């Protein structure tokens, strides 16, 4: 490396360290902007965008940081679109179409959003996430009947999709069907108990429907566990392994099928670590991508519970001062749940007290690396 480049890199790296130290002390919008510029200068535009996002969440009323963040997000979206299009060509799967359609929607290109979502539905008709994107398009257009039809299809395919259920409830309210809205909101409380936003919407829906504000019996019965007693589960020894392939709008031997096999194998490897009771991998909409769980566990509901915990933790990570969510560990009296962001998916590992944390963490890291590299 020529001496000049070496010195430039050294200066940039020192500047980053100094700005990061200042940020830990007394953060200001100006420091966030300078740090983002330093990362950009170092060739790390992804990190620069991340810094701007954190800055904007901490200082939402600072105009310059908000403007710069919007610009950086647009560039990130363009890069992501390019990556997704390439993946659709080589390793298509349903999540890629839904994600690409969402990115076009975020840019306000509705025609392209609809085109991509329809192509996704044609290729993978049994994936609820893509119908949800179309539902959102028609909500924006205030075409409540069409929005209702797409969202009902989304919920029919994925009964634990938090966002689709919430949007459907809002559409029912617009259509003057508050009792139906209340039922959908109660469905959410089944896997997101105590969700304050949903409880508030439910109260309004019940008032509009002239119903009692008391929670319905279904919500109370949700107190029962989706997981069996771990000791009984281990004794039964019954396990089931599922993968994205079960959605199966794809041909055996295709690149997609090969990737799903790899995901499934990775999940099985983690399950083999001593003390691990179950492993589940869900996409950003809460749909189960791969799992290795005891037979008695409702994997759809387990996925929804995990997605809800993840949503709560990642949505508040910046405000808690930790930055962007990477992993979480829920510790209970008899066991733990490890949550890790793996690309655009969430991995949850259920473990008992026998687990050796070092071994488990290594196997989770290996799995995450293999997914990212694939």
């Amino acid at each position, binding site marked *: 490396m020529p001496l000049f480049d070496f010195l430039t890199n050294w200066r940039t790296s020192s500047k980053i360290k100094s700005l990061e130290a200042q940020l*830990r*002390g*007394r*953060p200001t919008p100006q420091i966030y902007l300078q740090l983002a510029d330093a990362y950009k200068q170092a060739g790390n535009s992804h990190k620069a965008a*991340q810094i701007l996002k*954190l800055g904007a969440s901490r200082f939402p009323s600072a105009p310059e940081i908000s403007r710069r963040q919007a610009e950086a997000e647009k560039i990130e979206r363009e890069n992501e679109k390019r990556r997704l299009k390439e993946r659709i060509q080589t390793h298509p799967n349903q999540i890629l179409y839904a994600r690409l359609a969402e990115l076009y929607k975020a840019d306000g290109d509705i025609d392209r959003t609809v085109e991509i979502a329809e192509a996704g539905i044609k290729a993978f008709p049994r994936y609820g996430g893509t119908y949800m994107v179309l539902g959102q398009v028609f909500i924006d257009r205030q075409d409540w009947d069409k929005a209702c039809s797409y969202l009902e299809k989304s919920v029919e395919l994925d009964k634990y999709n938090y966002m689709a259920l919430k949007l459907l409830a809002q559409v029912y309210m617009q259509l003057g069907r508050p009792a139906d809205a209340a039922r959908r909101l109660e469905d959410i409380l089944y896997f*997101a*108990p*105590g*969700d*304050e936003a949903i409880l508030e919407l439910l109260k309004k829906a019940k008032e509009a429907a002239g119903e009692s504000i008391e929670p319905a019996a279904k919500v109370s019965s*949700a*107190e*029962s*566990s*989706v*997981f*069996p*007693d*771990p000791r009984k589960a281990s004794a039964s020894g019954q396990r089931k392994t599922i993968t994205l392939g079960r959605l199966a709008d794809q041909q055996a031997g295709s690149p997609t099928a090969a990737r799903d096999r790899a995901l499934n194998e990775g999940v099985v490897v983690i399950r083999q670590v001593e003390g691990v009771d179950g492993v589940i991998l869900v996409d950003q909409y809460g749909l189960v991508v791969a799992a290795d769980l005891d037979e008695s566990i409702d994997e759809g*509901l*387990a996925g929804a*519970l995990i997605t*809800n*915990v993840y949503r*709560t*933790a990642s949505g*508040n*990570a*910046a*405000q*808690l*001062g*930790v*930055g*962007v*969510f*990477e*992993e*979480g*560990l*829920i*510790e*209970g*009296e*008899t*066991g*733990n*749940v490890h949550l890790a962001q793996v690309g655009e998916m969430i991995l949850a590992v*259920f473990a008992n007290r026998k687990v050796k*944390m070092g071994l488990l963490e290594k196997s989770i890291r290996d799995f995450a690396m293999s997914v990212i590299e694939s």
Partner: protein
Amino acid sequence: MQSILAKLNKTQGVRGSMVVNRDGIVVAADFSVDLDETGIGAVASSILAALEGAVKRIKIGKLKRFVITGNENKVAMVDTGPTILLVILDREANMGLLNVELNEAVAEVAANAKM
């Protein structure tokens, strides 16, 4: 309460700590960095409330603590009974090594809250 937090904050890897009640109201806080304590208290209490419902169904016993690791720092939210102890840590902090100090602080916070 303040002296318990000050003692905990002397532990290597600990950046600051606070105690909030179940309604998210800050009981005591000791952060060396500039943070929105009221906002953090409210967020911590709502996260733990949501988690407690989920944990009941996941069958891992009563919730003891929730640790979130981000790209900047780590945060541990520990159930002390009547209150929540929230500790902000270095991203690379080893929870295993911090357990002694953390458990000691939890016991002291719980005892103090009962007084």
